[in-house]
Structures are given as C-alpha cells and as structure tokens.
C-alpha cells in the first residue's frame, strides 16, 4: 500500500487546519518561555501555504507539493521556526524525488531528511528542548516500524505517537537552543512550542493517511 498526491494535499490541509485551531495554544506555550508568537508565525505561514497550494497543478507530485510548503514557509514565517521548518520540508521533499506513490521507506526517508535539515540549520541535539525532540523520536519510530514491515499508515502513526511523546518529554528540560535558553532553570515545567507544533504536523500526516484510506 502507498500514499499519493491526494494524501499529500490532505496532509497539508489538515496541518493548516490544526495550526489554525492550535494557534492560541502554541502562542501561549511560546509566551511562557519565548516571545509568544509561535502560533501567529505558523498560522501566517500555513495560511499562505493553503493559498499557494490552490494554484499548484493537479498532477503535481508529493515532492513538488511539499517543496511548495517549504518555500512558502521560508518566505512567510520568519522567526526561528520559519527557516527551520522550511528547511525540514525542503530537504524532505528533495528526498522524495519525483515519486508519485510513497511507500513506508519513502516516508522514513522524508522524515529523516527533514530532521537532518533542521539539525543542519539549527544545530540542536535531542534534549535541547527544541522541535528536534519531536522529530528525532518520530524518525526513529518510523524507521523501526518500517523495518518491521509496517504499512505507510502505521509508519506515520508510529512517528506521530513518538513525536507526541517527545514533545511532552520537553517539559522537564532546560533549554539549550532558541529563546527559551535565556531562561535557564525557569524554562523547566513548560513544553517547547516548536516541539509541540512539529508533533501536531506529524500527527496530521498520520490522520490524513487514515482519512485518505477510509475514503478510498
């Protein structure tokens, strides 16, 4: 079983929906340990993504659609999350090449390249209390599931669950990157907003896969 361009668009759509829905909650997380704009930043970005996606040819590949997400985020979000998430989508989409159907391995390649892109730009490690704390567990879980022969849907679900646990696990941490690093011990007890939004994005991928397959 594979996922196609329809899934890709559904994923992007769901992501835009969830970012809009969680806008205030994300900014509130950022207000606790950052500057309170993370929800605003992402919703500016995904509003632009949705508008530009409408102009994309119907036969665009998953890679082309995700590259459009990348360039749109880079050119509209700003802040730390704009270049970081933008790079994630950019590197991830490059890993997909011209494929029209994505199997479990392709999804693992996407997630890995995306995570590596964030590390390349932001130089964060697991435990630094950043979005990497969602991406890296997601990559590991996806890879493990794929190695076990799981379906694409199951790979994404494993990734989503791991990302969500990873985001939650940022709460007790002291931050070593981004604005929260200025706070030292005072960041303890708060969830990292970027880890939270990344886990929502990965969850949207899994939800879209479930939805797409139920419809088909």
């Amino acid at each position, binding site marked *: 079983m594979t996922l196609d361009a329809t899934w890709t668009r559904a994923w992007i759509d769901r992501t835009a929906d969830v970012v809009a829905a969680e806008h205030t909650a994300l900014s509130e997380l950022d207000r606790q340990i950052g500057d309170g*704009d993370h929800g605003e930043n992402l919703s500016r970005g995904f509003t632009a993504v949705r508008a530009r996606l409408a102009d994309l040819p119907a036969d665009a590949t998953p890679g082309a659609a995700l590259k459009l997400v990348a360039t749109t985020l880079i050119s509209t979000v*700003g802040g730390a999350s*704009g270049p970081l998430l933008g790079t994630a989508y950019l590197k991830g989409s490059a890993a997909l090449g011209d494929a029209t159907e994505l199997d479990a391995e392709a999804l693992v390649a996407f997630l890995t390249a995306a995570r590596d892109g964030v590390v390349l730009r932001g130089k964060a490690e697991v435990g630094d209390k950043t979005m990497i704390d969602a991406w890296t567990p997601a990559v590991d879980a996806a890879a493990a599931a794929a190695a076990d022969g799981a379906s694409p849907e199951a790979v994404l679900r494993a990734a989503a669950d791991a990302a969500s646990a990873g985001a939650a696990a940022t709460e007790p941490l002291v*931050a*070593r*990157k981004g604005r929260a690093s200025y706070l030292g011990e005072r960041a303890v007890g708060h969830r990292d907003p970027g880890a939270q939004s990344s886990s929502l994005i990965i969850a949207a991928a899994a939800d879209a896969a479930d939805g797409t397959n139920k419809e088909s």
Partner: protein
Amino acid sequence: MKKLINDPSAVVDESVAGFGAAHADLVVVSHDPTFVRRAAAPVPGKVAVVSGGGSGHEPLHAGFVGFGMLSAAVPGPVFTSPTPDPIVAATQAVDAGAGVLYVVKNYTGDVLNFETAADLCEAEGITVRSVLVDDDVAVKDSLYTAGRRGVAGTVVVEKTAGAAAERGDTLDAVAEVARRTNAATRSMGVALAAGTVPHAGEPSFTLADDEVEIGIGIHGEPGRERIPLERVDAIVDRLLAAVTDDLGLVSGERVLLFVNGMGGTPLVELYIAYRRAAEALEARGIEVSRSLVGSYVTSLEMQGMSITLTRLDDELTELWDAPVETVALRRGR
C-alpha cells in the same frame, strides 16, 4: 489591550508606511517585500550596512537609516525576524558593488533568516559579511546555549559600522569595526511592566505592584530574576555591576554610557538613572566620555530601561562622533 492601532495584523505595514511618508527626505520605503532604505542609495564605491529584525523596537532599525549609519533596514512582524525575501531585496537595493555588511542581533530567527538571505545574495554575486550583536550580559554565554542576545548595544554597532562605511572602509574593515564595537559593548535591562504584542492581546508577562524583572530582553521574554522594587539607584548599581564586570573595565578607561528606555518609561526617569550610573562610574575612575539617553531600542510600550557601556578607544570615539543624519540620531548635518 488598548493601543492606537487599527488591525493588529496591519500594525507593521501601516506604521512603516507612516514612517516613510513622514521622512521622505531621508528614506524610501519599499513594499512587498517591505524594507526601508536611504533616499540616496546605493552610494557609489561605499560598503552598504543593512540591519533588521522583528518590529516593536522602534526607532531601531528604520530610525537609523541614513547618512553615516544604515543603508537599509528590514522590519519583520512584531518581535519576529523578517524572512529572507525582504532582506535580499534590501541588499540588492543598496549594494553599490563594494559589498554589504549585515548587522544581526543574535537570535536564532534573525541569524537563520539573514544567513539564508546572505546565501541567496552571494549566489547572485553580492558579497555579504555578517556580524552578530550579542551585548546582553543577562544571558549566560556558553557553548550550550544560543548565546547572549543582541539588545541596545545594536545602536552603537550600527553607528560605528555606518561611520566606517561612510569614510570609505572596505567590507572587511567595516565588518571588523562592527565586531570590535560589539566586543567592547555590554548591556543589561530591567522591566517594571511588560508590553503587549498586538496580536497576543495581553502583556507578555505580569509583575506584581512591588516587583521588577532584572535581566529582561527586548521581546517580552522573562528575565534573569524577579526582585522587589528598589530605588532606582540600587537598580542601576545592579545593572552596572553586571555590565562593568563582564567588560572587565578598570580605572582610567573611557566609556560611552547609554541609558536606553524600553518604550513606556519617560525621559525624566532615564535621566535619574543616568545620573547615578555616571556618578558610580566616575567613582570607579572610569571616564564617561560619551553619552546617549533615550528610548532607542524599545520593546513596544514596556516600562523599564537598560544600561549599555561601550569601551571607547580613539577610533571608536571618532566613529561615534562622525556625522550622522537619520530620523532618530542626527548630528553634524
């Protein structure tokens, strides 16, 4: 939230438009993407100096665009770094072939977006150098953090780098002046009350009636510690101790003393703080040879101030004194 605005999402666009209309003698505002450049730019043969960052720190950066300081400023959304596109457009608009220096406050967002812009510009054949400003001693500088933040000292770096560019220095020389100025500059701030980001609608943090936040940043980030409100002399002593220690100032040295208002604090208070700071420095044998007092690097309407010191040598003094003609700083022209 009470503000003199229309739509929270139009704050930056409308404000920059007003800025351009009010100061058409000095600057030109470009829209879509938004940036502010000197009316007379590019300047043939001279290095261009470009800065930018989130809005809400006015007059930084657009107020420092003009002769002897910035060639262009790129305002992002409130407290959010601009994306690479307007940085690239601004760079192209002011480059005269002698190269462009980016003065970047050390925040992950600013660093990444200016970095991307620099890559794109280099790909088009424009030579770009970047200098990070990280003067805030409230933040521990360590290999394991994002490093110190750039705050009020940015004005000093923009001034000396701009003066170096204006006198015809090469790109490497202008970058070296900027780096040297940053290395000689430290700041620390205090807040009495936070500002409110327009789209957030409530203050970034709340303090009790008898509390102040020491070591505050300029984005409503919480600071280093909360302490009971003290007499301003005691607060100044705290900030000054952190700054002078970090700079390692010793008797006989000369400094620029810059008392910066955070936006909602009146001048009358800043001068009371200045008085104490100058007295305390002189008591330690440090000569206050240049001064700046006012709200130059703000955090919306935050109430509070910061103290910045720059260790001056003859060259930095000369560059600080050099003629400048911008909206917020003007002398000698």
